[in-house]
C-alpha cells in the first residue's frame, strides 16, 4: 500500500511547485495508472514516493512506513523502474542484475529463478552476457523491469514503462502487472498511453500542474464528467480545463 499525504516539492532552481499538496492512496492488489501531460509532475511524484527526492512538506508512506523516517525499510518494499534506462552502460546485464540482487539481499537460488522467469518472459534471457551499452532502448527498459522484480516487491512502481517496448514485450509486461495485482501486490505506473490505462487500470489519477485533478475508477471519471467518451477525450478536456483555469 502506498500513501501520499499533502506532499509538495519545489526544485532548487525553480520557483514553481512541481508537486503541490498532493494526496493519494493506492491499495494492495490494485493496478493504478498515473496520468498527466508532460511536466505535470508525474515523475517528480514517483521520485518522492521512491525516496529519490526529498519532499518540502507532506509525507510518503509505503506499507505504512514513512519514507522520510525509515527510508531503507520503505525502499525494501519497492521495486522501481525509472523513466531513464540510460544507466550503467559499461556494465554487463548480468553484473547489473547481480548488483541489484545483492543490494536487496536476494540469495543465489532465488535470483536465478526470478531472473530466468522475467528475463525469459521479456525476451532478454539470451543476451544477459552482453554489455548494457550494446542494448537498444527497449532492451534496457526490459532489463530495468527484470531488475525491479528480482526481490519480488510488494509495491511495484514504474515510470513510463511502455516507452520503447515492442508489442510482444508490452503484452508480457501487462501480463506481469495483472499477475502481480492478482496475487495481492500493488502496481503503480505512469503513462501517456491512454489505451493502456483504459484497459489495464483498476483505478487512476490524473495530475496537472502538480495537482491531482481526478482520482477514481474510469467509470467514476465518466460519471463525474457526464461523458461516455474514451479516456483520451476526457483526459484532454480535463487537462484543457486546467490550462484555461490557470490562464
Amino acid at each position: 500500500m502506498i500513501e501520499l499525504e499533502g506532499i509538495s516539492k519545489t526544485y532548487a532552481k525553480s520557483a514553481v511547485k512541481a508537486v503541490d499538496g498532493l494526496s493519494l492512496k493506492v491499495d494492495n492488489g490494485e493496478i493504478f495508472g498515473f496520468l498527466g501531460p508532460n511536466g505535470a509532475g508525474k515523475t517528480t511524484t514517483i521520485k518522492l514516493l521512491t525516496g529519490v527526492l526529498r519532499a518540502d512538506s507532506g509525507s510518503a508512506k509505503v506499507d505504512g512506513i514513512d519514507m522520510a523516517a525509515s527510508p531503507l525499510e520503505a525502499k525494501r518494499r519497492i521495486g522501481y523502474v525509472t523513466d531513464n534506462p540510460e544507466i550503467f552502460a559499461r556494465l554487463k546485464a548480468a553484473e547489473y542484475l547481480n548488483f541489484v540482487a545483492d543490494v536487496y539481499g536476494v540469495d543465489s537460488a532465488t535470483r536465478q529463478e526470478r531472473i530466468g522467469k522475467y528475463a525469459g518472459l521479456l525476451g532478454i534471457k539470451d543476451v544477459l552476457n552482453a554489455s548494457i551499452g550494446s542494448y537498444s532502448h527497449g532492451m534496457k527498459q526490459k532489463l530495468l523491469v527484470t531488475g525491479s522484480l528480482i526481490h519480488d516487491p510488494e509495491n511495484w512502481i514504474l515510470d513510463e514503462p511502455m516507452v520503447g517496448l515492442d508489442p510482444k514485450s508490452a503484452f508480457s509486461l501487462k501480463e506481469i502487472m495483472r499477475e502481480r495485482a492478482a496475487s495481492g501486490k500493488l502496481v503503480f505506473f505512469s503513462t501517456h498511453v491512454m489505451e493502456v490505462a483504459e484497459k489495464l487500470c483498476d483505478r487512476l489519477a490524473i495530475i496537472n500542474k502538480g495537482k491531482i485533478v481526478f482520482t477514481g475508477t474510469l467509470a467514476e471519471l465518466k460519471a463525474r464528467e457526464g461523458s461516455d467518451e474514451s479516456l483520451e477525450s476526457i483526459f484532454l478536456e480535463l487537462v484543457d480545463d486546467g490550462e484555461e483555469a490557470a490562464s
Partner: protein
Amino acid sequence: MKVFLSLCALYLRSFYNLPGKRAPGTKPGAKELLKEAGLLLVALLAVANVGFIFVMLNLALYDALAPAGMQGMIILNTAVVVTALTLILGFLTALSTYFLSDMELQLLSMPIKPRALLGAKFVAVYASEAAFSLGLMAVTMVIFGIKEAPGPLFYLWGILASLLLPLPVLALSYLVQIPLLSLARFLRNKQAILVIGGILGVVLAVGFNLYFQSGMAHQADPEWLAKNFAGPDSLIARLGQVYPPAQYAWRAMTAPASASGAAAILAMAIACLAGPALVVALMSGMYAKSLIGFNESHLKKLDAGDARSFIGRRMRSSSAFLSMVKREIRLMNREPIYLLNGPLIIVLMPVIFAVMIIVQRDAFLSDPDMAGIMALLDSGRGALVAGLLGGFLGSGTSIACTSVSRDAKALPFIKSLPVRPADYLLAKLAHALIFGAAGSAVGVGCLAYLAKLGPADIAIGFLVAFGLSSLLNMGGLWLDTASPRLRWDSPMAALKQNPNSVIAILGSMGLMGLLGYLSFTLGLGRAEVALWMGLAPLALFGLLYAAFPRFAARRLAAMET
C-alpha cells in the same frame, strides 16, 4: 552559410563544453564566478607549464645560434614544432570527435550538405589547434622580437603563419581518417576509437616528453643544441626543408619587410588553405557516409541451454558493499576517458619519469643538485621522499574526487535502492583506497629500486604514502560530495572538466611540497616522519571517516538530478 555557421557554433559548444547564452536579466552567482575563475587559473597554469619549457628551450637555442648569425632558425624550429604538435593533437582530436554522439545521426537526417557537416567539424577541431599554435609562436615572436626588434610586419606574419600552420596537418588527419573509418568497420565504434586514441596519446605523450627532455638535458650545451635543433643535418632542418609551409613561415618572418617576405606569406596562405578546401570539397560525401551506422553494436546471443547455464553460473550472491565496490571499479575502468585520466596515471607517470631519467641520465648524474639528492636519500630521507612520491601517485587517480560527479546519471536509481547513503559513498572511497594503495606501492617501489632503499625505509615510505593518499582521497570524496558536477553530456566533463579533480591534484602537490619542506626544515628523523606523515594523516583520515556518514546522508538527500 547560415547552416554552416550554426553547425560551427553547435560543434564548438559541444567540443569545448562552452556555456550557452545566459538568460536575459540573470547574473552568475558567486559560486559560479569562483568556479570559472578557478578553471581559468588552472588553464593558465597548464599553459604556463608548457610555455615555460618552450621559453627556456627557445632562449637557449637563440643564445646558441646568435653568435653564428643563425638565430632565425628558431623560427623554423618553432614552425616545425608547431606543425608536428598540431599534427599529433589534431589527429587525436579529429579521431576522438569524428563521431561525437548520436546527435550526429540526428544531423544526418536533416537537410544539411555534407560539406557543411565536415567543414563545421573541421573548424571546431581547428579552433584549439590555432590557439595552441598561436601560443607557441607567440613565445618565439616575443623572444625574437625583444632580441632583434624586427618591426610590426614580423608580428603580423607571425600571427598569420601560426594560424595557417595547423590547417594542412589537420586536413592530412582527415585525409587519412575518412577513408580508414569508411573501410574499417571495427573502427566505426566510439569505444574502439577512444581506446586507440588513448594508446596513441600515451605513446605520443611519452615521445613528446622524450623530445623535450633531450633538449632540456643539453640546455647548457649550446653546440649540441645548435647542431641537433638547427644544424643543416638536424631533423628540424630536414623537416623544414621538405615541408614548404614551415619554410614559408621562416622566410616571411626573417625578412618581414621585404617583397620576398610578403610573397612567402602569400604562398603559405595558398598552400595551407588548399588542403582543407580540397578535403572538404572532395571527401565530405565519404565522411557523411562513414557516419552512417557508427556505434552500431552486435549482440552475441546465447542459445537456450547456454542462457540457462549462464544464469546458474553467473548469478551468485555476494555482500552488498562488495557489489557496490565492484560496480565502482567496473564503471571507471571500462570508460576509456576515465581509465586513461584516472587509474592509469599510476602506470603512466612512472613511465614518463623513467623516460626523463633514462634520457637525462648523464645530465642527472653530473648535476650537483642530484648528488645532493642522492646524499639525502642515503642519509635516511629515502623513506620520506618515497612516501611523498607514493602519496602523490596514490592520490592522483581522481577516483574519489570525481566519484559522485561520474555517477550523476545513476543517482536517481541509486537513491531508490535500500542502501545507506554512507555505504554507497564509502564504496567509492574503498575503490579509491584500493588504487591509492597500488599507487603508493608503485611510487615507493620505484624509488626503493632507484635509491636502493632498505626494508625499514620501504615500510615507512609505504606508511607515509598510504597515510597521505588515504587522507587526500577522503578529502577528495568530501569535496565531490559537497559540490559534485551533476549535469553533463559527455563523461569527460565529469572528470577532466571537473574543478574538483583539479583542486585535488593541486592540493596534493601543495601538501607534498609543504610536508617535504617542513620535514627538511625541522630535520625530522625516520620515526618522526612515520609518526607525523604516516600515522597522523591516518588519524585525520579516521576523524573525517567518522564524520562522513551524517554529511553523506544530508548531501545525498539534497542532490537533485
